[in-house]
């Protein structure tokens, strides 16, 4: 879309004029406004009442909830469980440290002109997983071991999404290169791999990983359930990643390939030094979007019995000590996801706008 760089001067409108122009311009617009307005007024009031004004925030246990509004007390009492799962109290500083490092690495990405944010991002993709690898499970450097069966809640959700995306990136790059390869067999294999994984629902993949993977492995070798789920998620995700990256590869003008060839660069150098750096930069918004959808999809692990944040909530809403708190629980989880996903999607939209060099007509 070609737009002129100068915007028309803003018209200062009186509220009445503004309303006439934006809400009541024609008879059917007026009707629509009234209908939507009526719906909003009748639904938002009681909703706010339930969410805030009549809700219970303070107290000790279920008896402090009046039942007129939401029982947020339930969330605050169980928050520790929802965030850390069964991770021992005295060791939770390790998880907190990881949360903090994650924030340090990735929050600056939202702030333009933050000094060294590129390096922080690279640290988040390389150094941070290594730190997490030693910190969260423990067992080295005198850290107490915490079995993966004790991980849960929001922490597990983040682990699944973070590792899933990191691990699927290199595999996705290889698959995308394979799909664009001139060797028919390599291309065929990549296409089959990508299309098969993309065609099956994640729930089948998780199910396969949790129940069938042990059958595929030689006797004596086996992975923990979390690791199996991660393997399944990674393979599944790498197919999607490959398609995103392929989009970037295709968008690189032929001239770039030809120029690299003319310089006498071999295949890997051509890709590694010329094509991939451009392509990857171009598909960052796409990668971020896949991350968002993976992040939401990690909730499915509750079906194979892992306690992610939805799983922990689901397992406590049936606690006899708390009655009828299912809605509060779901709203809480929805809010957690919404904050993350909305924030990140805004970031990717910004990026898209910035990377959009205006080649499109």
């Amino acid at each position, binding site marked *: 879309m070609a737009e002129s760089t100068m915007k028309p001067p803003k018209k200062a409108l009186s509220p009445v004029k503004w309303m006439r122009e934006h809400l009541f311009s024609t008879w059917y617009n007026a009707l629509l406004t009234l209908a*939507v307005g009526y719906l909003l007024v009748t639904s938002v009031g009681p909703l706010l009442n339930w969410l805030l004004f009549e809700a219970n925030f303070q107290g000790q246990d279920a008896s402090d909830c009046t039942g007129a509004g939401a029982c947020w007390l339930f969330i605050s009492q169980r928050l520790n469980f929802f965030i850390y799962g069964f991770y021992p109290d005295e060791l939770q500083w390790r998880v907190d440290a990881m949360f903090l490092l994650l924030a340090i690495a990735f929050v600056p990405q939202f702030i333009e002109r933050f000094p060294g944010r590129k390096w922080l991002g690279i640290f988040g993709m390389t150094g941070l997983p290594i730190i997490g690898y030693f910190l969260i499970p423990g067992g080295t450097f005198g850290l107490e071991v915490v079995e993966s069966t004790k991980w849960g809640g929001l922490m597990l959700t983040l682990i699944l999404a973070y590792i899933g995306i990191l691990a699927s990136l290199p595999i996705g790059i290889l698959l995308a290169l394979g799909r664009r390869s001139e060797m028919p067999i390599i291309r065929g294999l990549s296409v089959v791999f990508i299309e098969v994984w993309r*065609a099956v629902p994640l729930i089948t993949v998780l*199910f*396969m990983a949790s129940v069938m993977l042990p059958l*595929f*492995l030689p006797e004596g070798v086996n992975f923990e359930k979390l690791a199996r789920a991660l393997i399944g998620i990674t393979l599944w995700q790498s197919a999607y990643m490959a398609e995103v990256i392929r989009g970037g590869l295709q968008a690189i003008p032929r001239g770039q390939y030809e120029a690299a060839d003319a310089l006498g660069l071999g295949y890997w150098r051509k890709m590694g030094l010329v094509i991939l750096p451009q392509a990857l930069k171009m598909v960052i918004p796409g990668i971020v979007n896949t991350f968002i959808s993976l992040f*939401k999809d990690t909730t499915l692990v509750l079906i194979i019995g892992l306690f992610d944040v939805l799983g922990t909530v689901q397992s406590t809403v049936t606690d006899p000590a708390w009655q009828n708190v*299912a*809605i509060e629980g779901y709203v809480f989880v929805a809010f957690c996801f919404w904050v993350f996903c*909305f924030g990140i999607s805004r970031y990717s939209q910004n990026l898209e706008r910035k990377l959009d060099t205006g080649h499109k007509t």
Partner: protein
Amino acid sequence: MKKQTIDSRPAGPKPWYDPRVRSLFFQVVAIALVFWAGWTLVENTLANMESRGISTGFGFLDETAGFGIIMSLIPYDATMTYGRTFWVGLTNTLLVSAMGIVAATILGFIIGVARLSSNWLVAKVSLVYIEVIRNIPLLLQIFFWYFAVLGALPSPRQSIDVGGTMFLNNRGLYVPEPLTQDGFGLVWWALAIAIAAVVGIRIWAKKRQLATGQIFPTFKVGVALLVLLPAIAYFAAGSPLEWEVPALKGFNFGGGITIIPELAALWVALSLYTGSFIAEIVRSGILSVSKGQTEAAKALGLPNGLTLRLVVIPQAMRVIIPPLTSQYLNLAKNSSLATAIGYPDLVAVFMGTTLNQTGQAVEVVAITMAVYLTISLSISLFMNIYNRAVAIKER
């Protein structure tokens, strides 16, 4: 020939620098690796299954299933085979996917257009809807619609009664079932004739328009034909249709058609969720048509409706179709979340209960994955054909 090419290079390149040799080598290695990996997997699996006493083969499909399924589009009871449970699950999956695709498309188009509305309130409400719904996990939304709405509905004895024929309660929505009597075949015939006639008229009208420029009201005539012909046939045959009205028997309603709450919740959640994505696609599709196009159409003197139909939509569709296809695919795959709320789809029935009772995980999962692969490929194929039809032919 060979000698020449080698001689033409002064340094005498080694064969492994020859791109063709290299590519051959890598492909052979790749094939070998894949075969080796596949062979190891099969070997391991067979050895493991034998040592654990798990039987193999597809013989289990002919064994009696012995368990009940709440909803089935084809006749089913517990005395039928495991093979039958597969078809029950498959039809249920296809049903909810098809319903979801239709509803999500309608909803998505409405919201997408509303997002661009000149009405500020409507545009903002659509925006909030899109941003809220698509950033919340689908599984959570399914749980919400299922458990929250279920809890709000009355028990069968306090059913909401719509005119004594339709009933709504927490066991589902009960509607009368039409039972065709003798002579209903006439109506089907009339419908078939009407469809054929409409197709004929359309071809004729197009020809005439090309030849003379006159426009024939194909749409109005078509609708009239499609409604009137079967209606006349229906009354001519003496109204050969009876309605079976649901009635309370014991705990539940019997008779009629039941739309179970699992189906409803899944359908609503899938449509709302996918609809929010489609809305964004539609919006960007419409925005992608440059303003000059509309202005050009106006300059030609086309009325608003025709501008939209002949100029904007065809061009927008070209942008909309590819991402729309992947949304349809996602919806079909996401329908497998049914298993979380007990809707008997393929994953819940076949990969759930059947697998559990037979223990033949490898066969069952292989069949299930093959089905999803087929569904995905057919949706892709269908949408590709459609895409080719709407794509603007470049000269």
